[in-house]
Every structure is written in structure tokens, then in C-alpha cells.
């Protein structure tokens, strides 16, 4: 029974990248909230994450989930120095756009818009991907994210030079690397373990 694949033939799938709020449905059965063990709860780190089928599915391996969650939170939320929050979200959204994760891109495009107030530029990023012209500083961050999304990595001294020329210090450049790198992790989980859906209201 636990080897079942879940599919959603009646769902309305988003056909383009969007800042709209999407749902996400797992292809593998997550434990129910009631069935979560103590270890699995610990893996979720935040109690609220037990509501999410994505995090409950990942709780099937609680140790890696806990370490991943703490890595995620520090890279994106520890903003006392280095790259501003808006631009960490820009790196996340750009990486998701390039890897093709419509769900991840929608979430982090909204965050980038929220923190930067540049919703139209984010729409351009979602429409055009790495080719979008968003001004020097954002272009440098998107270019670096695109180079890091490549396998093998194409990130080079030229990308570091472009980021520094736009005023990023070493901490900020390191934040770009970590933010973009982290979404290569997130994208692969969300793309391979389930699918997005347009809520019926949309």
C-alpha cells in the first residue's frame, strides 16, 4: 500500500511560470498528521510544517529533513548582513525558473516581489528567464544563478567580478552562491516528488 503512486488526472496544471499561489500534490503518500512519529515531528523543525504534505512526505527521512530545514532557514532568513532578503529570493526564483520548477518559482517570485516591490521585474524574469534584463545588479545575480544552475557549474571569476562591480561584498557573493545552490536542492525535490495545481479560484 505504501508503494502506491498518487496521480491527479482532473487537476488544472499551471502552463506557465506565475506569481499566483499554487497548490502542490505529492506523488508518494505522506504520513498523515496523526501518524507522524516523534522523530518525524522533530524532523519538521516547525510544528506548522505538519500541515504541508510536502514536508510530511520528506519526514519519511526525518534526519536529513531537519538538517535541510535548518540550512534553508539560515541561508534565506539570516539577513543581518550580506545579501538583502529580496535578492536572496531573486536568486531562488531565478534558479527555479531555469531548472523549470513552476511551484518553487511561484513562491519565491512572490517573496522577491514582496521584499523588493519590483513585481513587474519579477514578472519579466518569469516570462523570459535568464535572458530577462532587470538592471545591472539584478542581472549579475540572475547570471550567477544561471551559471550555478548548470551541471557542471559554469560559475566563474567573471561572475564574481560582475557581482563585486555591482557592490556585493564577499558575504553577499557567498549568499548568492548559497541561495542559488540551495534551490538546486529544493527544485529537484519539488519537481520529482509531486506536481503543482492552479487553485480553482485562479
Amino acid at each position, binding site marked *: 500500500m505504501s508503494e502506491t503512486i498518487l496521480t491527479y488526472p482532473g487537476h488544472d496544471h499551471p502552463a506557465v511560470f506565475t506569481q499566483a499561489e499554487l497548490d502542490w500534490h505529492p506523488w508518494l503518500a505522506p504520513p498523515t498528521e496523526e501518524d507522524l512519529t516523534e522523530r518525524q515531528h522533530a524532523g519538521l523543525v516547525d510544528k506548522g510544517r505538519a500541515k504541508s504534505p510536502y514536508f510530511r512526505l520528506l519526514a519519511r*527521512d526525518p534526519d536529513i529533513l531537519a538538517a535541510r530545514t535548518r540550512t534553508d532557514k539560515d541561508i534565506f532568513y*539570516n539577513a543581518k548582513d550580506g545579501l538583502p532578503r529580496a535578492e536572496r529570493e531573486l536568486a531562488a526564483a531565478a534558479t527555479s525558473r531555469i531548472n523549470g520548477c513552476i511551484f518553487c518559482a511561484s513562491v519565491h517570485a512572490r517573496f522577491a516581489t514582496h521584499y523588493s516591490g519590483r513585481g513587474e521585474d519579477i514578472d519579466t524574469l518569469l516570462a523570459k528567464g535568464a535572458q530577462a534584463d532587470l538592471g545591472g545588479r539584478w542581472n549579475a545575480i540572475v547570471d550567477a544563478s544561471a551559471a550555478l544552475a548548470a551541471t557542471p557549474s559554469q560559475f566563474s571569476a567573471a561572475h*564574481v567580478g560582475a557581482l563585486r562591480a555591482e557592490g556585493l561584498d564577499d558575504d553577499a557573493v557567498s549568499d548568492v552562491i548559497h541561495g542559488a545552490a540551495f534551490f538546486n536542492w529544493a527544485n529537484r525535490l519539488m519537481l520529482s516528488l509531486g506536481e503543482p495545481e492552479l487553485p480553482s479560484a485562479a
Partner: protein
Amino acid sequence: MTTTIVHDAVDTALGIEPGSYLDKLRNRRPTTRENAQASHEALFNPEDDSEVTRTERHALAAFIARLHGDTALASLHREGLLASDSGPATGTALADAIDQAATAGATSGPYGHYREEGPLQGENTPGLRYVVPTPLAAELGPRLTAALEHAHLLVFRPREASPEALATLHRAGWSTDAIVTLSQLVAFLAFQLRVAAGLRVLSDVQGQTSTHDKATTTTGENHS
């Protein structure tokens, strides 16, 4: 090789010494540094390896590191594989088969076809849909072969991931719990290998800068 200083996997792969530029830079984000390594430990030194064996974990990781062109992390996992296997002869043969499988899978990504109908179809890009070469598949067995093919899919064409791909893993003997671990392993390495790649570039850039600094101050005395 063994020292009293605990190097994490990225330190080991990059040869980061305590007090060096990269050591200091990484210590600006100690929580990230510690939890990136905790992730590595959770995957490669797991409390419970009944669903995915240590041999399988290191074999997959060596394959994935090679696909990313990271010979240092590939070597680290080759060593892990050899240390995890019951017999050295079996381990060496397996490690060699993994190297050959990675050589056959070398390409550059991301590429692939969108699953979504509509305008994104215009962004589809062709590329290798990797199948483990037959003689190697026989050597690796159906379970590891399926995992390598899935890892290649996630590394290079994540947009093509599908429920059918998970069904293929089930048929090859991967349980639901094991697929979650396998997915985390591939996805984590996509992160760790990029952190390593990015830090290498920063170190090279910094090295050039410090060489330049030294060159401009050669007439000065050594202050320390």
C-alpha cells in the same frame, strides 16, 4: 591524513585550512556550515541504513559528483564506498563500474522537455536520456541501475521528473521511504557540489587578489 581538526566534507574536498580565507568566509554563516554538514552526515552516516545501504549511498554520490565534474568529492565517496563494502574486491569492481557509468553519462544541463502543455513547450531542449550501458547494468544490478538512471534524470533534466519515474524505482525494489532518501541524496548533492564549485571560484579570485597585494607590497617588511 587524520588530524585532530575536524574538516567537513566541503573543507576536505577543497582543502580548506583553519584560518584560511574560505574558512573565515564559511564561518560568517556558522549555522549554514554546520547544517550543510549535518545534511551530509544524515545521508552518508545515517542512523538507519536499512532502506538505502551505505554502499548504495556512496555509489550514487560518486556517480553524481563525477557528473558535476567534481573529482575531489567523487574520490571522497569512492573511499566511502570501499570502506562500506564487505569485501574489497567487490568494492573496487563496483567503484570502477560506477566510474564507467558516470563517464557514459557525462553531458551538460539543465535540459529536457516540459511536462506542461502550452508555451513552455517552446523552451524544450534536447539532451541525453541516460540509460546505464548493458554490461554495466548487469554488474550493478537492477536496483542500483534504476537509481543511477533516476539520479541522472534529476541532475540534468529535473523538469522531466514524473510519477512514472517513481513507479520505475518501485519496480526496481525502491520503497517509498527509500525513494525519499534517494531524492534527498541527489538533491542535496546538487546543493553541496554547487557550494563547492562556487567557493573554489571565490578562492581562486581571492588568491589572485592576495598575490597581487603581495606583489605591490614586496618592499614592505613582514608585519607578522
